[in-house]
């Protein structure tokens, strides 16, 4: 008997989270990497109070995008290396349940990293303006768009010869709208730029999310089939 769609999705999320909370490989790597990137930005851009005013959103988004590829690569590589992917595909569940399971657990990892990096950034730079609900909403929308395409493309790149190297090269040109729109919207929120400057990029972000969740959902089957 076929288990229900939701049940299958939750089973995959549960598997991923349980595996991660036991090994903590992925989160440790993503977090350490994020802190390192912020540290590098501190010296590369000389993040004094004037510069911070303008680049906070950009620095945070660059950090999350880089840490995100790290997580996406790892989460698909473990499936492939230990043959788990074949097992998952053999399971009598809808393929899109596998996609949503993987995507939601990837999103969970990214959000956990963001939830830890944001207070750290606020602590390092005395920047409390990032704790607005609008800012968090943009972060969530941006992460959803990034992860939905990222999960699809990591399923693709893991099957190629160049693997880890290929994912950022495939992913970044496609997710540029997400990154730009998120940086614009969250920058406008931090600097109190007024509603029109927040709404326009936000709308584009929502459009992107809707289109690319649908497209990723449609294509995932075609990517994992043997």
């Amino acid at each position: 008997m076929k288990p229900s769609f939701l049940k299958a999705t939750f089973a995959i999320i549960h598997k991923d989270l349980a595996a991660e909370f036991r090994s903590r490989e992925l989160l440790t790597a993503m977090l350490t990497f994020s802190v390192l990137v912020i540290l590098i930005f501190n010296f590369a851009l000389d993040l004094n109070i004037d510069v911070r005013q303008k680049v906070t959103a950009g620095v945070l988004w660059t950090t999350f995008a880089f840490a995100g590829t790290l997580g996406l690569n790892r989460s698909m590589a473990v499936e492939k290396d230990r043959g788990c992917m074949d097992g998952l595909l053999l399971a009598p569940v809808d393929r899109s349940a596998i996609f949503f399971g993987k995507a939601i657990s990837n999103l969970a990892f990214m959000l956990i990293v963001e939830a830890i990096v944001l207070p750290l950034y606020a602590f390092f730079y005395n920047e409390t303006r990032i704790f607005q609900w609008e800012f968090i909403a943009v972060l969530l929308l941006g992460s959803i768009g990034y992860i939905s395409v990222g999960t699809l493309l990591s399923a693709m790149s893991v099957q190629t010869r160049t693997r880890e190297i290929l994912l950022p090269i495939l992913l970044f040109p496609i997710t540029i709208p997400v990154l730009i729109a998120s940086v614009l919207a969250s920058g406008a929120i931090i600097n109190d730029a007024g509603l029109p400057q927040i709404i326009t990029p936000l709308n584009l972000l929502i459009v992107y999310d809707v289109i690319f969740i649908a497209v990723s959902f449609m294509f995932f089957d075609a990517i994992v089939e043997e």
Partner: protein
Amino acid sequence: MQQKPILLTILDILSIIAIGIATYFALVLAPTELVMGEVQRVFYFHVGTGWVALLGFIIASIAGVAYLVSKKMFWDRFGLAAVEVSAMFFLITIVLGSIWARPAWNTWWTWDVRLTSAAVTELIFIAYFMLRAGIEDPEKRARFGAIYTLLGGLSAPITFMVIRLFRSIHPVVVGNPSAEAQGGFDMTVDMRNTLFITLIAFTILFIDFIWHRVRLGGLQEKVEQLKLKTLGE
């Protein structure tokens, strides 16, 4: 051995003649622009190559859909040909634009909507080639390639819209007379004719290139099959 179709030979000759005529029009017959001078002549080929590059990008997406629906290898060859030709023309467009921008804007490059979108699109093309290079199985290569061109085709318009939120200085020459401050200009009848002829010439050249590339892809496949056959014996 597959003979080269006569129609293709005719198209070869036709495209040489057309490009010749277009060059003559752009460099000699078209009037010199008053403010920018001779460098404005770059405009005709810039628009011509840009137009076919965009056409190739759209065709590649259509070929991607066609492949995913029909699973016929022809559509993969067609899509690859469109991307390759389009990538080359896009690069030429960017280089020609730079040559014009240096005297007109006093800079080789600026992060304007069109320029940035063109750069992102070129990067999508490069990613596409790298993706294909990393896959050995031809069927999987075709499938992944088709999906990636579709993702690129969907994200490129959104990229354009998002970047437009920043200020743009690229002149909109066709259908916008108020762009003179940005290096735009009013076209005279001769200029319009020249542009029209260049557009046609590049379209003919584009079709010719695509045809050649698709044919080459077919021959490549045949060689691979023959190799496998002789190795198998």
